[in-house]
């Protein structure tokens, strides 16, 4: 069958909402796009463990410590689901790691910002995980089966993350003056980077059309961003705090909140590696990987020895059963 025909059949499946599975024919671009997106998503989960992991040993109560540990562990699990989904497309996890470690592959820029106070654990849960959920829920209906299934799992687990974050902020907002200040400060620092998580605005996104057609993506960046702003502008009232945007205002005609201009210069600089923590995040990942090399080798070496012993044992058994003479 020629490629044109296959492409048509492929698009027809997509249009009929039939999932694409690993062994099905798919256009090279579709595969490449998915590998890039899934691996970057996986990297984001794994690098995302670091800013929060930073506070596990300093969590202010045993309950918070246990919750934070469980949450960061979930992120490792999400990374694992996503790497596994990526592997169905014909790339190994080691190859994906190599791309991350060499700086070729990217991860969500939000994790290049520092976590400075305990309130940041709250702000990350509420805003960063909130933005992630807004993005991920539509992804759980994406056209590629393994990715969609991984996202279903992720979304199911993610809702506890956002709730625990909001609870941290809510507790701080009812606390002493220092705690309330900490709370507002964290919101101030995380608000704009969270809005940037949705990516560049639609009129700068010529490729959105293609991934919408492939149903990898189901809403545009700006649509999701607007939804997020609308939700947060209401939620922040429960905290008695404010979002750091003087232009934020309800627009009766549009039935949406208007909000101020995003600093895209900052966004692209952080993407390019000039954010506050890009270098240390990557260095930490590389170091963990390199320090683990001997461990990974040892486990394989042991497995090889065990297999060889088993083989020798089987051979001797077989020989001893052979009729004599």
């Amino acid at each position, binding site marked *: 069958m020629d490629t044109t025909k296959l492409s048509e059949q492929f698009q027809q499946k997509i249009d009929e909402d039939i999932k694409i599975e690993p062994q099905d024919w798919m256009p090279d671009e579709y595969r490449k796009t998915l590998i890039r997106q899934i691996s970057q998503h996986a990297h984001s989960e*794994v690098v995302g*463990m*670091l800013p929060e*992991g930073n506070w*596990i*040993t*300093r969590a*202010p*109560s*045993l*309950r*918070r*410590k*246990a919750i934070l*540990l*469980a949450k*960061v*562990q979930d992120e*490792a*699990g999400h*990374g*694992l689901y996503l*790497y596994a989904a990526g592997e169905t497309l014909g790339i190994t996890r080691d190859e994906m790691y190599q791309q991350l470690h060499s700086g070729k592959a990217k991860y969500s820029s939000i994790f290049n910002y520092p976590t400075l106070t*305990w309130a940041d654990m709250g702000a990350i849960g509420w805003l960063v995980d909130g933005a992630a959920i807004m993005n991920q829920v539509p992804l759980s209906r994406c056209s590629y089966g393994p990715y969609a299934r991984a996202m279903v799992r992720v979304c199911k687990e993610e809702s506890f993350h956002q709730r625990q974050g909001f609870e*941290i902020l809510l*507790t*701080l907002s*009812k*606390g*002493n003056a*220092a*705690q309330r200040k900490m709370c507002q400060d964290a919101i101030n620092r995380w608000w704009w980077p969270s809005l940037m998580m949705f990516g560049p605005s639609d009129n700068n996104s010529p490729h959105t059309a293609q991934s919408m057609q492939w149903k990898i993506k189901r809403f545009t960046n700006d649509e999701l961003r607007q939804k997020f702003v609308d939700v947060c502008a209401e939620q922040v009232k429960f905290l008695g705090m404010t979002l750091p945007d003087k232009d934020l205002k309800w627009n009766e005609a549009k039935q949406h909140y208007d909000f101020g201009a995003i600093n895209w210069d900052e966004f692209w600089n952080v993407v390019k590696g000039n954010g506050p923590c890009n270098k240390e995040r990557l260095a*930490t990942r590389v*170091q*963990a990987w390199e*320090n*683990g*090399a*001997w*461990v*990974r*080798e*040892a*486990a394989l*070496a*042991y497995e090889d*020895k065990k297999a060889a012993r088993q083989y020798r044992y089987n051979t001797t058994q077989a020989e001893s059963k052979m009729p004599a003479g």
Partner: protein
Amino acid sequence: MESDTIVMNETAITDALIDCTLQLADDSLIMGHRCSEWCGHGPVLEQDIALTNIALDYVGQSRNLYQYAALLLEQLPKEKALSLVDFDIIPEHITEDSLAYLRDVGAFKNHLLFEQPNGDWAQTILKIFFFSVYRFYLFQQLQNNADERLAAIAEKSVKEVTYHLKWSSEWVIRLGDGTDESKFRMLQAIDALWPFVGELFEPAGYETLCYYSDMLTFERLRSDWLNKINQIFETATLPPQSIGRWHQTGGKNGYHSEHLGYILAEMQFLQRTFPNAIW
């Protein structure tokens, strides 16, 4: 006259029970703290998750134990309770958190072994292995303790510990019988940690009192522990060990290595910066 003696003994046993519970809680918390330092830095994603799971179990155990200690303390007149626990910020109420966050180094009763730095993966694995074997036999005996709640906590924890024991034994074997490098690192880990194992089997006064009723003997604990260690070491092609008479000691009675101060400085700073705040 005779009944007075009995009352005194019961008080002494309650005091010992509180100390014992705190001792167990401190071991769990400090192990949980050390293991949680690995979160995000493991040698492979799956093992990162596994180790974090274990850290979570330890933190969970410490919470159960601190909650029980807090309950016992809250039942006492406040003055009496405060005389038993050396808080350096006096809490409004004694809770799991005030016990974990408002005591300083001298009040912590964990073994020296568990506050030692993580080192590499070999040293961390070995420490978890030592701890798991110790806890496995200790909790098996503790399940019969006269104190029902302590026995119940032991019973719940023994399931988790059984898994930690399996997981860490397998890793000891893999590393011992893996590559030349992994074996070398295991031998180094044994060298680093062995001076601290003797303390596990040297009962503090409160342990002798508290464990007296269930005939828990530290000699038996020690021989069970050592047999298991050497059995796994043999499979792992690591040299057999024995417990000599000289070892580092003091943690159980509040005399620690320099490492614990750093752990607590990190762990407790928020609670100490904002005393009595709610988090």
